[in-house]
Structure formats: structure tokens, C-alpha cells
């Protein structure tokens, strides 16, 4: 187990990168604490798999260093880094039994057979695969195969970090939550650093203590699921996390007041900086229908179960509000109220208001 430090990491798949657009990863500085449960969240192509492969040693970064507990491992191959990785598609050794599959990483490292049997039994117990140990791994269902891949990652005791690269992609929906909670449970039992890569916010938010959100090869925000939801540092995070995402509304600053569609809007606190492109950010959860406020016309009402999402037009900007009961009709004239301590201003995409004290 180890603390992992990424220092000034940059990576390009091109031999001679000339500008920032040529980099799949642009300057990453990050510390992963020992024993933490992390998620790397971002849309496809944001560089999260690249980052993962750099940590595991399958890729050597163009620039920067990787430290495991202050030991530089940048140039070490994967098998010398003591890491484990679970891939998108289950990788199992078809011709071996489940037992041999789980024992494989230990046998390759010359661990004594008695110790192997002990370790495999322990891991098989955790994964609920004890009764499958003698079956040929090729005959397992996809979710059990993925369990075995996870088991191969966990079977070594001294492993520094276990990485998961979208491991639930091929798993049936009704088994996903089962494996996900299994994973969470495993983390609590073995307390090894885990990094979980996904583009699915539900998976990231349920698994991780800390979520790292990436976009275009950059880290946009690191925080707990609550922090990401409540105070997105960037409009991208606001939009990407939450269902529906944050309302991002064009706004102007005139005489120190924030105007949206010609109406003044109160934001949570003092505004930093000046100029640039300004936008208001407020989650639909904090927009309500009121007797007074911003006049709007309802364009769409969708019932999503316990709530309803009302989409109303303020001028020509759509604003979403999440309400308990949708007692409005399409076309109705309503007023929208923004909860002030949840209304934030973003300048060029980054947050520009200070939290109320």
C-alpha cells in the first residue's frame, strides 16, 4: 500500500507535440492517499484511461514523474509496480480453473502453494465464488468473470493500488448494483487504494470518497460527491453531475449587479474578478415556482417519479426547475425563484462567487 503522487504529468500520443491540443493529458498534479477510494470521472476521450495506464505502467508519460511513497516508479514496468488493474472486458485465462486464475499472480511471484491456497480461499470467500473454484473459468457468466478479474487484483496482499477501468460496462444492469456494492464492501475490508474510472456519475458517486472530474485532459475538480454536487468549481462539473444537470444561464454584470434577462439576480456571496464571459449556475433542485420573481413560460413538464422537472423559458433561455408536484400546464405563465445561497456566478467557466459565511 502506498501513497501515489503524480507530479507535472503530461502525455501525448504524438511523437512531437506542438501545442496543448496535442496532449491527451495536460499537466496533472495529484496525490492519492493510501487506502482511499477514488473515482476518475469524465466523458469518453477526456484522458482518464490514459492517466490510468500511466499509473499502472502500461504507458510511459511524455513528461512528469509518478511516485509511490516517494519512490520514483515512472520507468518501472507494470509487474514491478505491484499494482492491479481490472479492465473493461473481463480478462480471464480460459483454460484454467477459477482457482488457478486467482492463484496465477501469486504463482508467478513464487509464493508457496500453502499460502496460495489460503489466500485464494480468503478472496473467493469475499467474492462469493467459493463453489466455483473448480470450474473452468471459460464457462462462467460475464459478471462472475469480472469478479474473478477483480479477485486476481486483490489476491496479492502487498498491492499498492487496484485500478478499475469501467469494469461494469459488460455487466447486465440488474447485476451492476450488486457488483458495485460488493466493490464498496471489499474496499472497506481490505483498505487498499482503489481508483475507479468511469463516465457514469452514479457509479463514481456511489463508489468513491473522493471524485476526480476530468475534461479534455485536465482535472476540473476534486472533491467528495457532496462537494461536487453543491459547489461545482466549473460549469462542466455542474452540467456533468446531477440529473438533470445544473442550469447554466448567460448573465451580465452591470454596476456591480448580476442581471439575467434584464432582471437582477442575487448570488450567494461576494463576486471575484471582472470581465470575461459570465454565467449563472443554479441546480434545478433550488429553482422553485413562486408568485413573484422571474417571469417565465412553461415549455415542458416531465414527471420523473418522485419529482417533476419543469422546463420554463425565461426570454429565450430554458431554465429547469425540480418541483414536488407539477401543478402547472404547458404554456402557463409562471414566476421562478432562485434560492440565493445556491446561486453562483461563473466567470469563463470557473466559479467566481465566494461561499456565504
Amino acid at each position, binding site marked *: 500500500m502506498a501513497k501515489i503522487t503524480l507530479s507535472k504529468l503530461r502525455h501525448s500520443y504524438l511523437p512531437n507535440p506542438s501545442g496543448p491540443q496535442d496532449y491527451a493529458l495536460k499537466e496533472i498534479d495529484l496525490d492519492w492517499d493510501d487506502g482511499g477510494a477514488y473515482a476518475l470521472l469524465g466523458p469518453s476521450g477526456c484522458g482518464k484511461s490514459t492517466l490510468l495506464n500511466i499509473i499502472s505502467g502500461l504507458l510511459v508519460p511524455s513528461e512528469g514523474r509518478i511516485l509511490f511513497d516517494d519512490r520514483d516508479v515512472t520507468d518501472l514496468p507494470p509487474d514491478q509496480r505491484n499494482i492491479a488493474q481490472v479492465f473493461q472486458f473481463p480478462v480471464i485465462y480460459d*483454460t484454467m480453473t477459477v482457482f488457478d486464475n486467482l492463484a496465477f*499472480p501469486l504463482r508467478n*511471484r513464487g509464493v508457496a502453494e500453502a499460502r496460495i491456497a489460503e489466500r485464494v480461499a480468503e478472496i473467493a470467500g469475499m467474492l462469493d465464488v467459493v463453489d466455483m473454484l473448480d470450474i473452468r473459468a471459460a464457462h462462467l457468466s460475464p459478471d462472475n468473470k469480472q469478479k474473478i*478479474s477483480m479477485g486476481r487484483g486483490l489476491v496479492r496482499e502487498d498491492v499498492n493500488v487496484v485500478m478499475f477501468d469501467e469494469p461494469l460496462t459488460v455487466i447486465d444492469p440488474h447485476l451492476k448494483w450488486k457488483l458495485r456494492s460488493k466493490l464498496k464492501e471489499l474496499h472497506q475490508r481490505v483498505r487498499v487504494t482503489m481508483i475507479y474510472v468511469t463516465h457514469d456519475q452514479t457509479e463514481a458517486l456511489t463508489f468513491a470518497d473522493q471524485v476526480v472530474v476530468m475534461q479534455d485532459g485536465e482535472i476540473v475538480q476534486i472533491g467528495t460527491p457532496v462537494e461536487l454536487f453543491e459547489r461545482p468549481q466549473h460549469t462542466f462539473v455542474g452540467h456533468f453531475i446531477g440529473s438533470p444537470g445544473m442550469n447554466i444561464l448567460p448573465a451580465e454584470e452591470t454596476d456591480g449587479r448580476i442581471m439575467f434577462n434584464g432582471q437582477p439576480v442575487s448570488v450567494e456571496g461576494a463576486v471575484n474578478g471582472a470581465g470575461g464571459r459570465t454565467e449563472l449556475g443554479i441546480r434545478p433542485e433550488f429553482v422553485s415556482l413562486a408568485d413573484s420573481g422571474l417571469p417565465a413560460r412553461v415549455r415542458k413538464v416531465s414527471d420523473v417519479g418522485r419529482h417533476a422537472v419543469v422546463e420554463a423559458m425565461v426570454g429565450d433561455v430554458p431554465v429547469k426547475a425540480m418541483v414536488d408536484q407539477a401543478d402547472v400546464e404547458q404554456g402557463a405563465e409562471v414566476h421562478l425563484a432562485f434560492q440565493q445561497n445556491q446561486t453562483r456566478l461563473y466567470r469563463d467557466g470557473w466559479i467566481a462567487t465566494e461561499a456565504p459565511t
Partner: protein
Amino acid sequence: MKTENQRGWFFVLPVLFLVAFNALVPIMTVVNYSVQETFGNNVFFWQGLDWFEQILRSDRFRAALGRQFLFTFLILIIEIPLGIVVALSMPRKGMWVPVCLVTMALPMLIPWNVVGSMWNIFTLPNIGLLGYFMNDVLGVNYDMTQQPVSAWITIVVMDVWHWTSLVVLLSYAGLVSIPDPYYQAAKIDGASPWKVFRYIQLPKMKTVLTIAILLRFMDSFNIYTEPFVLTGGGPGNSTTLLSIDLVKIALGQFDLGPAAAMSLIYFAITLLVSWLFYTLMTKDDAQ
């Protein structure tokens, strides 16, 4: 709902006619010859299983069969491992892939009798490039027209030259279908190159290798043209493989009865060995 009737048979009928026309009827003709004796003029005498007995008891047939098995064994034992090794060492990405593939495919594009003629000219002592090089430059006494061992080496090398590519291309197809994560996982698990081959590459190549071995077995067991053009079955009878012997009996001596019996035995052996082999290779998957 499943409808129970016999209508399905009508859909099979056209194929049945076609197969009857081009396979069953010709084979029945052979069966017809194999149990009768004829001196021409469409006059036949019933012979029973005499021809079969005669063939199975004859030293000539047994010798040809032995040579046939030896030849097939030799080329399989060389071509399969060699093909796998070549496939493993071929690049899997980049500009050299098409170059390698085309180069590999070239020998297979040459017609069989041309291959025979090429190797004949190539290996003739004193005038062929290889023959001259062996005898006059290296001083090795090599003459495939006179020495059985030289003749055998030549037909085996010729077959390896002609057909290893097939094994290479099939193995290569199996290799490139292995997704990268398998290699990455093996690296992380600390597997040695031998273990990567044994537990990832070989299992993934198994299906195509089964096909490769079956094809090479059937082709080499029935081989005729190349050795016939190269050595004509000689020197003496040393390279007279089964099909060469069969043609000698049928068309050379015009012994239609024994030839027909022999081709049926020949056919049965090919079928039996292929079946045995296929059953053994696919036994594991059925479990």
C-alpha cells in the same frame, strides 16, 4: 407454437439431388468397380470383397501407406510449430503488416504443378541453382533423382515452402484477435513470455490451429501433383505416395477393380483420421 410436419424435407431435396449427382453417384460407380472384375465391353463379373482383401494384404499398398503417413507426419511436425513461430514474430501493427501478409500469401498463389516444376528445375543436380550450389559449391552429395533421402528431403522442404504460409496466416488471424487488455493483464500478473504463450496465445489460437492442422492433414495425405511433377514417385518407389500409387494402378495398369477398392480404403482412412483428430481437439470445449 411448433408445427409438427414433414414439410422441411422439401427444402433439403434440391441439395440432395445436387449432392447425389456430383458425389453419391460417382462414388457408387467406384463402389461398383470395387466389387467386380471387368475386361471391357461392359461385361462384369462379381468379385465380392476380393479386391479389398488383395489391397490390404499387399506389401505394395502397405509400403505406400507407410510412406504417406511418414510424409504427412513430417510436414505437420515441421509446418505447425514453424507457422506458429513465424506468426508470433510478425508485427501486429504498422506499415510492415501488409508487406508480411502479401509475402506470406505468395507461395500459396502458385499452382501446384508449377511449384513441382520450379522445385524440379531448382534442385536438379549440376544445372539447378540449389543442386549446383549443394554439389559444386558446398561439396554435399545431393541428387534427388538418384538418392531416396535427397528426394524425401526435397519433397518435404517443397511442401513446407508451399504450405507453411497457410498455418502462419491462420495463426496470425488468431493472434490479432486477442484484445490488448489480455497482454496488459498478463504483464500486471507478472506472467513470463512462455506463460503468455501457453495461457493466452495458444488457447486463443486453438480454433484456427484445429482448422490449420485438419486442412494440412487432408491436403498432405491426398497430395499428388507436386511430388509427381518433382520425382514422379522415384527414385524407385521411394517417394510413391498413396495417390501416386493409386493413379499408377488405375491408369497405368488399368486395374480398375483393385484401384477402386484402394480409393475406398484411402477415403475411409482420411475420413477416420480427420474425425479422430477433430474429436480429440474439440473434446475440451464440449464439457
